[in-house]
């Protein structure tokens, strides 16, 4: 019941018909090849969102995505989401300007504020193509589309230093290998960032990710008007220190220790 349907080995010259629109049935050689090359590609060029998406799709089966689906099946909201398959798209939720008019303690406001600070808009995520069944494809799509809400509810900014601990949090919370591997981008952070992440954000990610309820079971679209603090309590989610505030404080400290140019004596001018 919990295992994927047994896939008969097939020749690439006679692939089985797609299980859902856009589906590309691939054999194990192809899946492995795509997984390795897309992981390498996304590490070298993180701006290739399509490679990151591909890496996620090819590394989540077997086992991990079915396990995430089971997590959804064992939760009432998760089951409802699987039945109705809601999608978070720029048109399925209220516009950012509308959300900004919500009370400031709501999830909707927090989400819109987060987008606004980053000068982002909710954008359409690429469809899932390399996952074998329609329901598993939906589970992965749901995760992909909810990612911005994970940012908003944890408060982590959409910069490299914020993405890395969030990925580790997602790995502890949802168990998808791609998220754990993406946290490996830790090595590309600057020294100060690495220190902060190692000391504060990674320990937070591990503990909070394990203790919090699986975020895949949150029906975000229905929680837009909920109080965000109350939602966090319901989920058992502890949030980390404000990263932007810490970064700003450090920048001020550095600036403070530099020579204050405005009080230095004026240099003798060669031109009078």
């Amino acid at each position, binding site marked *: 019941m919990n295992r994927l349907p047994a896939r008969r080995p097939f020749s690439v*010259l006679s692939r089985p018909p797609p299980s859902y629109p856009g589906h590309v049935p691939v054999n194990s050689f192809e899946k492995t090849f795509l997984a390795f090359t897309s992981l390498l590609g996304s590490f070298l060029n993180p701006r290739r969102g399509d490679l990151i998406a591909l890496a996620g799709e090819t590394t989540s089966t077997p086992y991990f995505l079915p396990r995430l689906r089971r997590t959804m099946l064992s939760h009432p909201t998760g089951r409802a989401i699987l039945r109705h398959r809601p999608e978070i798209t720029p048109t399925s939720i209220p516009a950012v300007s509308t959300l900004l008019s919500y009370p400031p303690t709501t999830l909707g406001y927090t989400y819109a504020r987060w987008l606004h600070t980053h000068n982002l808009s909710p954008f359409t995520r690429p469809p899932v193509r390399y996952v074998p069944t329609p329901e598993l494809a939906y589970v992965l799509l749901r995760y992909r589309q909810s990612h911005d809400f994970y940012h908003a509810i944890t408060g982590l900014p959409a910069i490299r230093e914020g993405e890395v601990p969030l990925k580790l949090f997602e790995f502890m919370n949802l168990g998808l290998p791609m998220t754990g591997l993406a946290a490996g981008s830790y090595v590309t952070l600057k020294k100060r960032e690495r220190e902060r992440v190692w000391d504060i954000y990674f320990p937070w990610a591990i503990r909070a990710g394990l203790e919090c309820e699986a975020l895949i079971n949150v029906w975000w679209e229905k929680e837009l008007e909920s109080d965000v603090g109350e939602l966090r309590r319901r989920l058992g989610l502890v949030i980390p220190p404000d990263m932007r505030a810490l970064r700003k404080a450090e920048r001020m400290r550095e600036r403070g220790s530099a020579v204050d140019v405005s009080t230095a004596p004026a240099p003798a001018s060669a031109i009078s």
Partner: protein
Amino acid sequence: SSTEKTTHFGFQTVTESKKADKVAEVFSSVASSYDRMNDVMSAGIHRLWKDHFVRSLNPGRRPGGSPMNILDVAGGTGDIAFRILDHATKINHDTQTRVTCADINADMLREGERRSLVDTSYGGTDRISFIVQNAETLDAIPNNSVDLYTISFGVRNVTNIPTALKSAHRVLKPGGVFACLEFSKVRPAILDAIYQRYSFSVIPMMGQLVAGDRDSYQYLVESIKMFPSQEEFAKMVEEAGFMLPGKGFEELTFGVASIWKGVKSL
């Protein structure tokens, strides 16, 4: 209309009017990464094929002869056109032979024009011009005006090949040469088995990884499979009114690609 003729677009069946649009979409989407993909797909061998194709045609003025007016069809990015001009200039010391680069897709032509200016000395001169044309009609090209007609890796994308061959025949001068470089059938069967698996597995994956576009490359490999065999296409060239030298074709790299030639009778 419900009685419109259908044709193939890769393995799909579409109406003839739809095919031209779909092909245009494919090439707009691949235009900028086209050369990188060709290199990846053929391990750079496509450059050797094109070099041999042009060298064997020996374009350019013969001693005591006149400069050539050459038409390169479906040659958007200019690969063949530049080689032709280089050969005419450097080997035949002919600085007057000119090439018209025609393609149905404006994006590919734009890329060709850009390259002619950046990578060659012919850009902006009267030795090369770029024009949007459908290979089936070539309505801007007058009858009996072209010395050499080349089409390289383009004929398999044409909706109605016999019509394109007839247009080629129309625009060529009597005694003019038709030359086509295109993917063909690999022989022997064992090599073909490997080649097919490579085509249908590795190439679409490389399309996804390098260009972020699996579907266009899936179309490309399907269109290769749907193209007639060497002998069948040679027959089509003959039926369009050309005289074939020998059996009409020359295989390259075990038949992965072939060159067909025909002469319009005087």
